[in-house]
């Protein structure tokens, strides 16, 4: 479709011959005829079925549209301009319009409107967005009426509702935690290089730009540089219309709604760029989340579940969208942030066991959270998805489950399970043995504890494990707080919890079975009673029926006797003929002489 074919317009209508370009592949087009292509594409006009669609009308529409476009070939003709001038079904007209446009018969030489989809397709090559937020953002079209410096700047590619689902590139550990590392500093928003300490400038919306990039901005950067940006900061409507390059504040002349992202830099004029005032770093919090912020965030999520306002309050330095974005980026962040979390909060009161305050259990959770944030990757990822069937908190996050589990079991069970878990860990690795000072464990305690059914022998076992546990605690406390130590402790505690659950689950199962049997027995009893009542009822009915039968028989006999006696009387008195209907004739004839 590249060669520019030329075609003369209807010479008779216009005095001067102007040449319009249409693609070579559309050279079948003739003013005076309707081509096979058109007939196939728009069969509604040619079926001869309806009064409103016939070839003549089609030709009128088509010619009108093409002529309208040719009034000004550089200007793009929109469907709306056309349809207000034509009478007919707008859907059909739209189809026709699109047909003409696709074949290049209109809008071929027109300047392409910066179409949202095309701009994004271009930008996808350039911009690598990390972990975009999970909610949909419909992108707004840039305004063509803006002054040239407000020309559409670079658009941040988010999950656009109109473009269909474009899944974010999968994040990896290094992506997320790479920038966490406080030693190496953060990434420059433009060139992706590591910024040397203090060698960056914070832009108005919190993006860090290394000095190199801030100084040398050309229009070609969007083509060549691969921009690696941290998650989108909150879209603050900027007060100044300064057209800073890549993600800059939006032009003030277009007060977008809060969800509109920043526009994209198409070839931005060079002079406009240099006038950017970047010298002073603005007091916006840096994009890298510190440990304490992460801690607050996780706490907030656990406490408030799905309520982002409260979470944002909890993490004081970040607003709602940042929190959400950050959480999504974490591995399993989506699971934490999932809506089922909200459900778990409401289900907690359902747990029948004593309502231990979550605040109290938060202490171990906090510690777990901070370290567990890093550990979670290496540790049992599938268990997060596994459903532990107990007391309704099946879909919680891992940490929450641990917390809940630890609260619902009794201390003896927990202790026994803890020891069993520790034993298991010790069996796994030598290092763990050192950590837990395995030398204190005897062979007999091992055999005792490997039995995971504590309810029966609680008393006997409970003492021993608790003593041993205390002993093992001390060496742990003495030894240095190494990374691996805590790792094992965490694993031990998790295994503990799971073991405790298993015990409790068995208890519950037994209880349920017994209940079921009881209920079954009651049901059967009730049914039997019902049947007996029915039988009695039927027996009574039978008796009544018998009585009535007897009565009827009696009456029958009585009637027969009466009849016989009245006949005899009639005989004796010598009545010659009977005139009654009730008496059967043949018998009367015989009896009368």
């Amino acid at each position, binding site marked *: 479709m590249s060669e520019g074919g030329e075609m003369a317009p209807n010479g008779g209508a216009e005095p001067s011959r102007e040449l319009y370009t249409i693609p070579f592949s559309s050279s079948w087009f003739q003013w005076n005829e309707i081509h096979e292509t058109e007939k196939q594409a728009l069969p509604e006009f040619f079926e001869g079925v*309806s*009064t*409103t*669609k*016939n070839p003549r*009308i089609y030709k*009128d*529409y088509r010619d*009108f549209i093409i002529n309208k476009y040719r009034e000004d070939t550089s200007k793009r003709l*929109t*469907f*709306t*301009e056309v*349809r*207000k*001038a*034509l*009478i*007919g*079904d*707008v*859907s*059909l007209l*739209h*189809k026709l319009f699109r047909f003409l446009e696709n074949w290049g018969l209109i809008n071929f030489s027109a300047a392409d*409107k910066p179409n949202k989809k095309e701009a994004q397709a271009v930008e996808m090559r350039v911009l690598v967005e990390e972990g975009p937020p999970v909610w949909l953002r*419909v*992108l*707004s*079209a840039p*305004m*063509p*009426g803006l002054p040239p410096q407000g020309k559409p700047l670079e658009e941040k590619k988010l999950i656009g509702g*109109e473009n269909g689902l474009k899944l974010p590139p999968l994040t990896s550990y290094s992506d997320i935690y790479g920038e966490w590392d406080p030693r190496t500093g953060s990434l420059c928003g433009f060139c992706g290089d590591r910024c040397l300490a203090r060698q960056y400038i914070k832009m108005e919306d919190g993006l860090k730009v290394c000095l190199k990039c801030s100084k040398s901005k050309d229009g070609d950067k969007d083509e060549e540089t691969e921009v690696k940006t941290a998650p989108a900061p909150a879209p603050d409507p900027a007060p100044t219309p300064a057209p800073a390059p890549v993600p800059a504040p939006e032009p003030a002349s*277009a007060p*977008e*709604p809060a*969800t509109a992202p920043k526009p994209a830099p198409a070839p931005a004029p060079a002079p406009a760029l240099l006038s950017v005032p970047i010298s002073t770093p603005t007091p916006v919090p840096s994009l890298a989340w510190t440990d304490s912020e992460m801690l607050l965030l996780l706490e907030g999520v656990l406490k408030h579940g*799905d309520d982002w306002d409260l979470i944002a309050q909890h993490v004081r330095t970040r607003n709602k969208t940042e929190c959400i974005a950050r959480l999504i980026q974490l591995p399993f962040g989506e699971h934490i942030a999932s*809506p089922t979390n*909200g459900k778990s909060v409401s289900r907690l009161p359902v747990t029948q066991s004593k309502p231990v305050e979550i605040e109290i259990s938060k202490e171990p959770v906090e510690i777990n959270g901070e370290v567990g944030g890093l550990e979670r990757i290496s540790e049992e990822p599938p268990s997060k998805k596994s459903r532990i069937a107990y007391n309704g908190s099946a879909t919680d996050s891992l940490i929450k489950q641990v917390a809940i589990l630890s609260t619902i079991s009794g201390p003896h069970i927990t202790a026994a399970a803890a020891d069993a878990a520790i034993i298991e860990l010790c069996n796994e690795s030598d290092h763990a043995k050192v950590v837990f000072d395995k030398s204190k464990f005897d062979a007999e305690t091992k055999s005792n504890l490997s039995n995971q059914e504590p309810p029966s022998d609680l008393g006997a076992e409970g003492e021993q494990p608790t003593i041993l546990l205390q002993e093992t605690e001390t060496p742990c406390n003495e030894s240095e707080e190494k990374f691996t130590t805590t790792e094992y402790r965490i694993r031990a505690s998790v295994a503990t919890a799971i073991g405790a659950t298993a015990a409790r689950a068995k208890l519950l199962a037994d209880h349920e079975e017994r209940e079921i049997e009881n209920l079954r027995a009651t049901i059967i009893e009730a049914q039997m009673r019902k049947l007996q009542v029915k039988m009695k009822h039927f027996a009574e009915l039978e008796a009544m029926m018998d009585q009535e039968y007897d009565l009827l028989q009696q009456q029958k006999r009585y009637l027969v006797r009466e009849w016989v006696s009245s006949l005899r009387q009639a005989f004796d008195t010598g009545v010659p003929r009977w005139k009654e209907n009730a008496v059967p004739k043949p018998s009367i004839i015989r009896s009368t002489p």
Partner: protein
Amino acid sequence: MPTKESLIPIHLDLDLDGHRYKDAFTWNPHDPDSQVLSFAKRTVKDLKLPPTFVTQISQSIQHQLAEFRSFGGQDMFIQEKIVPLKLDLRVNNTVVRDTFLWDISNFESDPEGFAVTLCNDLDVADPEVAPAIAVAIREQLYEIATQSVSAVKEAKLGKKGRRGYELSKGGNNALDVSRYFGSKGSGVIRKRKDWYMNGPTVDVLTNEEVGTLEELNSRFRRKLDEKEDSFQQG
């Protein structure tokens, strides 16, 4: 409904406990009914409405769905009928007014596509306008559909003599197509002076104008309520 996908326009306007919730959207009738409840819950949660809204919302949606489903049979649409549709709606700060013709027998008609094209062509900044337009179009189509269905039902029940009368009554709002499309007609191109009447107008209001509009609306509504009350009492 004769469109590419038949979506039902749903209209919600609830006012409880001082919270006012007004919304319009389209619903896919083939969605399982369990979705209604989860949608209601999600909405209440996202907009932080009091939980009494959940049942209200789901009831309202189900009521409208049931109404739609009671209109079975689509054979009334085979016959071609071009009707004029009007748009007159305000979404946040944008006011859209428009008239255009729609063929209700065209099974490929696509209100959503039309709305999106309209917003693109007119450079409407607000992304909420296009869905609102689509909903408005569907509502009108729905009304026309129900009218024709009930007209046909009445015709069946009534006598033969009445049938002709009913049908012509229902067809009045359709365009007199023979005038335009007949062989000797003046063609389908409108006169230039008529163009502005049939084209869309889009206005962007400032916040104060929006405020005054809301004021007027609420005052009007209050007056209506008062009138209703007095009517019921009297």
